[in-house]
């Protein structure tokens, strides 16, 4: 019998959004995505091109995942390191297939706010900022959006206070109307469930974690819930032994756990039953 925690399964779910032979990237301050990419590389996607966040190293084997994203532990002995401009050019011209994006707010079209709660120029809470997301969310092949802060009810919102990164639609129109060829958000994974995006580019609930109900999700979600529960291609299925081993090997310090509120970290599961 195998047992695992929500943070482990969450990282595995993110990893499963990566297809083999994709070029994938995560932004900084994103340990769950960062760990997920290395898990994918070590399990089902060995031939993905893994671009290691703020180091821009290609397919490195981290000594371990440290809690800061521009650290030698992430890229020592890498065969190749992209330059900053090399990565951003590749992303802007559409050569990068997938990026992971999160946000303090996420709307129904998968656009995100990582700039300011309360909006600008008078923010209630100034968030860190978008890095390069405002550019490359336009052109990257597909986006995996995630949040580990769904339950609190302030993250998935009907209207963003500020639109930093592009989902399927902005006030100015759709991606096609804006002239963007990047595919936009493909998956939205939260600590409550997994969404994809329908033909209108709107999030649609496809799967729940074992200890979550649709009502839980509805209560925590600011936009009208669209539901098509069908398992979400198995994203939230129990992690394999190989996947769990990879999570633990890649992230011995548990840096991924910094993304979760304490009660979420207490959620554990096993092959026999949900143990919550």
């Amino acid at each position: 019998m195998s047992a695992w925690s929500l943070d482990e399964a969450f990282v595995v779910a993110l990893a499963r959004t990566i297809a083999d032979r994709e070029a994938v990237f995560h932004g900084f301050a994103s340990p769950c995505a960062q760990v997920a990419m290395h898990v994918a590389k070590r399990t089902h996607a060995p031939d993905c091109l893994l671009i290691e966040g703020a180091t821009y190293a290609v397919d490195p084997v981290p000594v371990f995942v440290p809690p800061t994203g521009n650290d030698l532990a992430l890229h020592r002995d890498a065969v190749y390191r992209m330059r900053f401009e090399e990565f951003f050019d590749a992303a802007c011209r559409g050569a990068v297939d997938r990026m992971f994006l999160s946000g303090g707010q996420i709307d129904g079209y998968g656009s995100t706010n990582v700039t300011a709660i309360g909006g600008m120029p008078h923010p209630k809470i100034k968030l860190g900022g978008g890095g390069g997301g405002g550019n490359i969310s336009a052109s990257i092949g597909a986006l995996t959006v995630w949040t580990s802060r769904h339950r609190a009810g302030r993250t998935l919102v009907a209207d963003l206070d500020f639109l930093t990164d592009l989902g399927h639609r902005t006030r100015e129109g759709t991606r096609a109307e804006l002239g963007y060829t990047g595919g936009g958000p493909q998956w939205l994974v939260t600590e409550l469930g997994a969404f994809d995006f329908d033909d209108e580019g709107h999030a649609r609930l496809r799967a729940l974690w074992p200890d979550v109900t649709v009502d839980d999700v509805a209560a925590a979600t600011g936009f009208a819930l669209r539901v098509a529960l069908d398992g979400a291609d198995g994203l939230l299925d129990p992690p394999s032994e190989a996947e769990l081993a990879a999570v633990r090997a890649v992230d011995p310090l548990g840096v991924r756990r910094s993304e979760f509120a304490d009660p979420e970290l207490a959620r554990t599961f096993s092959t026999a039953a949900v143990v919550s």
Partner: protein
Amino acid sequence: MSAFHLGGDKRVPLAEAAARVGDGALVALGGGLCARLPMALVRELVRQGRRGLHLVGSAHSIDVDLLIATGAVAVCEESYVGFEQDLGLAPAFRRAAREGTVEIRESCCATILAQLRAAEAGVPFTPVRGIKGTDIEGLHPEYARMTCPFTGEELVVVPPLRPDVTLLHAPVGDAHGNLHLDQPFVLDERFAHASAQVVATVDRIVPTAELVTSGVVVPGHLVSAVAEVPYGAHPSSCYPGYAYDRPHLAAYLAAATAGGTALDEYLARYVAVDEDTYVKDVDPGRLASWSESTAAWQELFR
């Protein structure tokens, strides 16, 4: 005569290096996140009471936050300011944004890159992919939109970005200002070429021949002054010398979050003093332990 900085011995004391940055200057900060930040120069700017700076950079942390905390900043044009998931939001930055004491002109990495390249290439505008449709665009009345004459599509175009000075820290340099950095270079190269001058600190000045073996990344003709300041990037990392000082960063964050007396005490102890005193106090030599073993390296992050 030349726009380049030619010849001679460019070694200066730290105070003189920082003095190249005038009040109100457009200042680019090298390094990124908590790595290779020009912290000794930042501390010296605070000591010298610099005001009205316009900061530009990609993703930064204590360098920007400390300058804001001490009132040195008028405009902040960074793509990110914070301490990642590890230590969280940047307290002085967050407070200044809420209170409106600093103009937050948040930007995006690839847009800053495009603007630097326009400056490097001597053209007055350049198009960028993305941004259009985001609210970032609305923070920048200096941007425009143009229709591509070939495809008919509308793109955001941006003006060149020409910093008055780029502040860099490098592990090694020579007396002529040639600098060796390890990757990731972040925007250091682009800043260096787009700026009127580079002012650098280095952990060690070495003979040119030794530097050439490592590889010159930023050439001396872009650099107007270089100061030897051991541990000049602390508390950010500068491998192979030293890792990120997590306890020190946490202490800064606690002080800056509390503000008032707590911040004053931090500044009195770590900023108002000279760098020799600073180094004796913070003892960054312990951060070389990363190279002893994986366990020792991990220990620095627990």
